[in-house]
Each structure stands twice: as C-alpha cells, then as structure tokens.
C-alpha cells in the first residue's frame, strides 16, 4: 500500500473539488497522465468497487478514463484511490446555476449523446441510476461526459440494495418513481431514460419539473409520482415532437416511456426531421 505522500509525488496543483459521504475528489496534474481527478473512497464498500469495475472495465467513450487504482494510506486509514481523466468542460449544474439554457439544437445534441450513452449501458446490462446535472460535464465543443457510477446497478449481478428497503438509492428530482420506490424487478434502462428526459427538460426550460417549488425531499418524490411536467412550446419544435418525446421519456411509469434507448433514438430521429432550428440568445 502506498503512502499518500508517495501518491502526491506524481501530482501537482491539487485542489479539492467535492467532498461527500463516500469520497473526496481532487483535481490535479499528474506527471504521466496530465490533467486528472483523484478520488479517495472513505469506505471500500461494494458500491465503490462496482463503480471502479464499471468505469475501468468497459472503457466508454463518454465516461472519463481510469488511469490507475490502488490503496493508499490516507489520514492513517487504508483508502481506495482512483486516478481518472479530467475532462475539460463545465459541470452542467454550474451552467444551470448561471441561468444558461440550452438552445433547441443543443438540447437535441445533448439528448442524442445521452441516449447513445444509455444504449452503451444497455448493451452491458447496466443502469446508471444517477444521471443528473452534477454528474454531467459538457465540453466546449458540446461533447457530453457522464460521471459517477456510485449507485449504478448491473442487472445480472447481485443487488447491493436491500430488497426490503423502502427507498432505493436515488437523487430526488431526477430518479424515476420505480427507482426510488425500490421496485427492483421493474428497474431497467427506462429509469435512465426518465432521468435523461428530466435533465434535458431542465436544461431547455430552466426548470426541474419535480423539485421546483417543492418543500422537502419527500415532496419532490411525491411530485415525481403524481405530476405531469408542463408541456412547453419550444421555438422551432414546430410539431411539438421534441417536447412530446421529453414528456414520453418522463412518463411516470416505465410502460409509458420508450421501450429502450434504440426506440428513443428512433423517435428522436423522427422528431429532428420536424424541427426548425432558430438560435436564441443564451
């Protein structure tokens, strides 16, 4: 096991990016890999292992690459660490906080990349389960990266959530009802389709349809189960096909959403043919 100082020898410009219950995240420059992110996991639990397994095992183009993993003595504790590619871009949440909204063209590109990502996951029988603005980085040229497989589920692997748990792991406002209700047998890629629909809707309209105006975590969940997002008229969406697709993605039951990412991509393709792009001021 490495000493943290040994690890630091290869790293410079370290800056803490985030600290959560499970891990602390730094940005840094690595002597061999260049711009990287260092993640230190407080608990070497099954979820952390699974995240590393997914990120390193499948080498998705839209997921930062993992360069190195191992154990390090951090504050006197055996700690799992991970060094991964640092994507130069902006976290989607930060864009939203600034009040930047997607144009119709940007929304289409974002959704297309999101669905392509979900398609890759489907092929590996993985459900991300945490697609939200905090876990998405957008580069200057519009490429989308997806982060954090911390609560991802591999459908043909043992579940890491207790079956009897009333709530499954989720982020309120983005998780599909069947996910936070822990209806395990009904969870599949359609839960990710729900989330990508919500994120696209939020980036386009500036509003999260479920958390806006909610007074508590439970209130958000209740709204997610009960309300149908307002169907906005978007300039250029001449036949209401793009908003129709977003509404379908956000269907409160899986049966109302596209069957899978391929069907969603087909529907997006059909919608694109009806759009008239007219760039608006950001």
């Amino acid at each position, binding site marked *: 096991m490495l000493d943290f100082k040994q690890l630091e020898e290869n790293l410079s410009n370290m800056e803490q990016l985030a600290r959560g219950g499970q891990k602390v995240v730094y940005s840094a420059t690595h002597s061999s890999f260049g711009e990287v992110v260092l993640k230190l996991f407080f608990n070497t639990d099954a979820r952390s292992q699974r995240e590393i397994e997914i990120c390193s095992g499948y080498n998705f183009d839209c997921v930062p690459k993992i360069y190195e993993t191992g154990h390090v003595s951090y504050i006197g504790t055996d700690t799992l660490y991970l060094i991964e590619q640092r994507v130069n871009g902006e976290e989607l949440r930060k864009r939203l906080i600034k009040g930047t909204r997607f144009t119709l063209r940007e929304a289409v590109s974002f959704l297309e990349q999101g669905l392509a990502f979900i398609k890759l996951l489907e092929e590996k029988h993985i459900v991300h389960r945490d697609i939200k603005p905090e876990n998405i980085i957008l580069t200057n040229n519009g490429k989308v990266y997806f982060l954090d497989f911390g609560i991802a589920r591999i459908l043909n692997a043992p579940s890491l959530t207790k079956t009897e748990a009333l709530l499954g792991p989720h982020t309120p406002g983005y998780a599909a009802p069947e996910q936070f209700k822990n209806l395990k*047998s*009904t969870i599949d890629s359609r839960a990710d389709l729900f989330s990508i629909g919500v994120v696209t809707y939020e980036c386009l309209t500036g509003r999260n349809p479920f958390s806006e105006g909610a007074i508590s975590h439970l209130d958000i969940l209740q709204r997610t189960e009960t309300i*149908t997002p307002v*169907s906005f008229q978007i300039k250029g969406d001449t036949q209401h096909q793009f908003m*129709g*697709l977003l*509404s*379908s993605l956000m*269907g409160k*039951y*899986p*049966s*109302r*959403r*596209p*069957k899978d990412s391929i*069907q969603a991509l*087909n*529907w997006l393709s*059909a919608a694109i043919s009806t759009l008239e792009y007219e760039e608006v001021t950001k």
Partner: protein
Amino acid sequence: MKFYLQMCHGMKSMCLDLSRTWGGATVILSPQNIYPTIKLKPYSESIRKLGGSVLFDPQLYAPSKFQKNLQKHDYWPREDFTSIELSEYNEVLKRLADINLNLHTEMFILPSRIIDRVDDQWGKDQDTIASQARIVAKEQQLLLTVALGKDVLMNDIQVESIIHYAHHWDIDGVYIVSEHPEHYYLVDKPIWIANLMSLIAGIKRLGKFVVVGYANHQMLPLSLAKCDAIAAGSFLNARWFKAEHFETSENKEPSQRTKWFYCPQTLSEFKVAYLDVAHRSGILNVMATPSQMENEFSNMLFGGAIPSSTNYEESDSFKHYLHCLRIQCEFSSKFTYIETRNYHFAQLETAAQLLTGLHNERIKGQDRDFNEICDVNAAAIQLFDKEFGFAIAREWDIK
C-alpha cells in the same frame, strides 16, 4: 378494431343470423349458455360453416362458486374445485386444451379467477397458467384472461403492475374483462376508462394481442390504445362484466324486456316509446340509423309508421345494436393515431350536439343516455393522449 360477439342467454340463433348477415363473425362461446360440453362442437361447426370463427371463454372467474350450468361441463373442477385456488391448473388446462382443439377455436382463452387487487401471488398464478398451457397446448395461440374486480382499474399503480407482469407471461395475448365501478352500465369515471386504455396500450406495446370482453359502445375509444377487438352481446350482462353472474346458484334469466333502440350517432339507446315522441315531434329522422349502418333489423322504425306499432322486436333491437357496434368498431381505427384521436373527439362532439337537440324535445335515453358520458370519454381520451399518446402514435404502424 374488430368486433366479436359475446354469447349470452338467447344468443345461439342470433349469432348464427348475424354471422349469416355479415358473412362470418367471431363468436366467444359461453359455456353457461351451451351445455353440456358435447353440445359445443355442433354449434361451433355451424358458426364456422358460415365463415365465422369461435373462441371459448371457460368462465372460471369464480371456480369455487356453484353455478348450475357451468357445473355441467366436463372441465369444471367439481370434486377438487379448490385446486385452481391452490395454483394447480394442469388438469383443467388439459381438459380445456382438448375442448379448444375440438372446437377449432381461433385462440385458446386461458382461465383465470377474478381479483380485487393485483399482487405478486396473482402475477405468479398467471405465469403458472401461461407456462402450463404452453406445455399442454403447444400448437394453440394463447390468450390469458385478466379478470378484474371493480376497483382495480381505478388505480393506475395496479394497472402498471399488470403490464409489468404481462411482460413475463409466455402468451400471445390477453382477454380482459373488468367489472364496472359502482355498478353502472355506462361508466361515469374518466379515470377508469383512461386506465383501461392505458392497460391495453401497455400490453399492446409488449407486442401482444388484446381482446376486451363484455364491452359496449362506450369502449369504442379503446381503438386509440390499439385494442384488437372488443366483444359485446345482446343483454346487458354480456355488455358489462359482472362477477356475480358467474357466482349465482341459479341462472337468473335477464328480466328486462323493454325494447330499446341504439342510435349510433348519439351513442345512446332509447326506449321505443321515445321514438314515438320523436315521430310526433317530426324529428325522428335525427335518430334514424346512418346509411352505413342501416339494417334490416331496424329499418321498419323509420318507414313512416309510429315506431311502437311496427314489428320491431326485442331480438331486432339486439341485432341492430350489435350490427351498428360492429361497423362503429371498424370505423374506430384510422390510418394514424392523430386521425383516430380526432375522429373520437368528433364522434363525441356530434353525439353531444345531437343529444342536446333531442333533450330539448324531452327525448332522453334515461340510464342509457350518453350525454354525460360524452364528457367522461372525452376526458379519458385527453388523459390517455397526454400520458400515452406520443408513444402510441410513434408505434401506430406496428401491429
């Protein structure tokens, strides 16, 4: 959307007559009305000779209840009637498979008990029925019964659960029968209709065939959910599923004997006495059957004589209803989803306007008047369109 005849009391010759008129009809045979089992075969053959086809509804909705006529059938689990409730379907499925083969049924309707609530046990039982039927009826198309108590379709979570279970059943389609909420012939709850549409749409999206039994003209919008067929019969007990009909110790024959006239453009039925009022008010032509649905069973009502003085009989009333409904079913599906949705809205709007005119003359269909139901169905369609419309519209061409 196709139309099937749901056999009930007094329909044996009526089905043959209609089959002859239509050049063939699909009839869902009722063991409660044809018994013992040996009598099914010749009747089935006579339907098939007329170019029609048959399905056989085993009516095992309440297998532990004593139903006099159903007990006369070979397949009915008399001695070990509890076996079905213990999820042991093998024996009854074998007997039913033989009957279906013998009758040359178009599809094998698998039995199922009626439920008040969808739960895991029911989902497993349905799965068991489907998988055991696959073994005993290898060559037959399987339609699994989904029999619902009055409250199930009021709950969209329950509806979603059924769709989820249906995903795993090894079947070709489902045969849905459901009690109406609050025991009214015409359902006044838009949510119930919308949820029935959602259930059908969800199952259709799984690529399965859907037949809704014991239906009536209020179910025409089911075509918007891509329902393959609805079935209706003469008396109300074959247009409105009631579990008690399969639970009673004696077969209570329908007691109502009022002659009704179905006015398809108003989606309402009127007692012939009210046609007399229309005749005297000079507006009977408003109620006359549209040319596409004109038929020998009701033409006498519009020949100039006072309607009640004509030889319009009860059987004519039934045949006229079924004839019109069959054509309305044919018209109910259009080339695209949007066209179909607009057609249904227009149909309801037309009915509401015509009814307003008739009501001004105090001509009403009483408990079969569609005036308030127009709003119910329109609200249901609107809700369905919002929740399912986009997906169904995209898949409209996929059978």
